[in-house]
């Protein structure tokens, strides 16, 4: 199997791993007068719930200096983080490819 196929299969596997829970996990039915349960919330937040249950008297002694004012702004900042990373990787691969091509061209001449 060529490297290209291997890479494509691995990417496909990642997509399936992400899509499968989205397609199969359903929020539990809400009882009458209940808010429907939230699904796909953050594990970090759920850990906070366990802390509150284990140590109900615990008071967090510090709070974040700056909180994103809304979920939208938070996703903006997460996107910024991903863009910085992905942008650099793309730049790196681009530079490498072009450099190899130039070397190849000058070597052939």
């Amino acid at each position, binding site marked *: 199997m060529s*490297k290209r196929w291997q890479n494509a299969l691995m990417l496909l596997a990642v997509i399936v791993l992400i899509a499968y829970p989205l397609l199969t996990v359903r929020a539990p039915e809400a009882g009458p007068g209940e808010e429907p349960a939230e699904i796909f919330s953050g594990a970090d937040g*759920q850990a906070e719930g366990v802390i509150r249950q284990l140590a109900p008297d615990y008071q967090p002694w*510090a709070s974040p200096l700056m909180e994103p004012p809304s979920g939208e702004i938070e996703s903006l900042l*997460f996107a910024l983080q*991903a863009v910085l990373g992905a942008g650099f990787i793309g730049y790196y691969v681009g530079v490498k490819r072009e450099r190899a091509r130039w070397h190849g061209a000058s070597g052939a001449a």
Partner: protein
Amino acid sequence: MHIMEGFLPAEHALAWGAVSLPFVALGLRAIKKKVRENPELKMLLGVSAAFTFVLSALKLPSVTGSCSHPTGTGLGAVLFGPLAMAPIAAIVLLFQALLLAHGGLTTLGANIFSMGIVGPLVAYGLFRAGRLIRLPQGPTLFFAATLADLATYLTTSVQLALAFPDPVGGFVAALAKFAGIFAVTQIPLAVSEGLLTVLIFNVLVKHSSRELHDLGLPLAREGARP
């Protein structure tokens, strides 16, 4: 794996900070040394950091019905050694603590320990061990990165269980609760991280074989060397 701001008692926060600080310092020294010997590696170090930036920004859904994110530290650990990722994880965690209210300054030490120290140590150790007994490079890297991701989340569970033991069952019962959230959710995500790490590594094998050679990584694809 981000323990939230203020959610570790002060003694724990200080202790984890004290444990992590020397690793960050040693990591900076290791990076400086590598880059001084071979300035070409600077870009590759950037790629390792960038990979961590991307992966730790992706909150992915899991079969448990909650979301978490990979860490991306396996790649840099395999390339640059286990210490190099401590300062890089510190930068990512600082970015998230300051701008995103994700994690925190008081919990920075604990979070660096799980993401920047334990994960990379596991990745590096497993990769080296696997290569030593001549396992093929791709699958070895996959398992190293996957288990490093899981190790990071298990470490977070241990840190929280140490700080908040169960009133009845103590440390073990609390660990089961925290690991139930973190580790189980993380399993499919860790597999994704392993696959993505092999993917980016394949890209590097294709485009950066000389740097990989300089880093002492025998190549899977012989003949690809310039």
